[in-house]
C-alpha cells in the first residue's frame, strides 16, 4: 500500500512536471516549477563559486553544478508559456516584457545556453582557467536577463 501510494505520488509528480514543461499545467504549477528550477541553478552557481574559492577544488562537484545549469539552460525558454506572467494571479517576478519582447527574451535565453555550455564543457575538460573565464560570462548572462525580464522582489 505504502509503495503503491509512493508510486502514484511519483507518477503524479512526473505527470505534473511533464505537463508544466509542455505548458499545459495550471499557471501556478508552471510558476512554482520554474522558480524551483531557478533556485537549483542559483545553488549550482554558488556551488561553482564555492569550489573556485576553496583550497581543494573538487572537479566532480563543479561538473555536477555545471551540468545542472546546462541541463536547465536548454529548457528555460519553455518555462514561460503564455498566462504565466503577472496576470497569473500568483506571486511571480516574471515581467510582462518576456511576452511583449519575445525576440529579446529568446536572445537572452540563447546567451544563457551558450555561456552555460561553455562552462559545462570547460568543467568536463577539467580546464580550470577556462572555468574561471566562463564564470563572469555566465554571471552576466544570468544577471542581464534578470535585469530586463525580472521584476523586484515583494
Amino acid at each position, binding site marked *: 500500500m505504502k509503495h503503491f501510494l509512493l508510486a502514484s505520488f511519483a507518477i503524479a509528480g512526473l505527470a505534473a512536471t511533464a505537463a508544466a514543461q509542455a505548458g499545459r499545467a495550471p499557471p501556478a504549477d508552471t510558476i512554482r516549477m520554474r522558480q524551483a528550477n*531557478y533556485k537549483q*541553478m*542559483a*545553488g*549550482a*552557481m*554558488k*556551488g561553482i*563559486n*564555492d*569550489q573556485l*574559492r*576553496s*583550497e581543494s577544488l573538487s572537479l566532480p562537484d563543479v561538473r555536477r553544478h555545471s551540468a545542472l545549469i546546462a541541463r536547465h539552460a536548454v529548457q528555460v525558454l519553455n518555462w514561460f508559456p503564455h498566462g504565466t506572467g503577472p496576470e497569473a494571479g500568483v506571486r511571480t517576478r516574471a515581467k510582462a516584457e518576456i511576452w511583449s519582447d519575445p525576440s529579446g527574451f529568446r536572445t537572452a535565453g540563447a546567451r544563457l545556453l551558450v555561456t552555460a555550455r561553455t562552462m559545462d564543457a570547460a568543467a568536463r575538460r577539467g580546464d580550470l582557467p577556462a572555468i574561471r573565464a566562463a564564470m*563572469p560570462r555566465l*554571471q552576466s548572462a*544570468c*544577471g542581464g536577463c*534578470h*535585469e530586463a525580464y525580472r521584476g523586484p*522582489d515583494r
Partner: protein
Amino acid sequence: MSAAPPFQARRIAIWDLPTRAFHWLVVLLVPAMWWTAEEEMMDLHILLGQTMFGLVLFRIFWGLIGSSTARFAGFVRGPRAILSYLRGDGKARIGHNPIGALSVVALLTLLSIQVGLGLFASDEDGLYQGPLSHHVSLEASETLAERHETMFDVLLIFIGLHVAAILFYLVIKRDNLVGPMVSGSREAGEGEAPMAAAPLWRFLIAAGAALALTLAIATGL
C-alpha cells in the same frame, strides 16, 4: 579675555595621519559601496568591501596601539564621565569627548557588522558572493545579504547623527571639527598638550596585520 597673548595662538596636533586617512577613506568608500551595490557592479562592490574590511581592521588595531587620541582606552568613557560631560563640568581635553566617543564606537561597530555580513553574503541567484560565503549555504548567505541591506539603513541613520552633531558644533558651539580632521591640528586651548604620536613601527605593525588578514580572506581562507 583681558590680556591678548603675546604670540599667535599655538597649534597642536590632535589627530594623526593614519586616523585622518582612515576617516576620509571611509567617507569615500561608503557612497562608492552604496553606488556599486545599487548599480549591481558586484565585482567592484566586493573588492571595495575587502578594502573596507582592511581599513576597519586597521582602525581597530590602531585603537589599541596608535597615537593617544586614536586609542579606545584614551577616549571610551563610562556613563559617569558622559553624564558629567553633559552637565558641562568635564575638563576640556583634546581628542574625542565622551559623547563623540560613543559615536566612534557606534560607527566602527556598525561598519564591522556591515563588513562582516558582506563577507558571508550572496545574492539570491548565487551569482556573486562575499569572500567567505563558501563556508555557509546559499540560504544562509541570502539571509545575510538581506541583513546587509537592512544594516546599511541603520548605518545611514548613524552617519546622519554624526553629521548632525558636527553641524551642531559648527553652528551652535562655533567649533569647526572638520578642519582638524583634515589638517590634524587646531589652536591649543589653555594648558592643552598635543597628542602623543605613535612611532612609525607601531603603524607598520597595525597596517601589516590588517593587510595580511585582508589578503588571507580575499584569497579564500
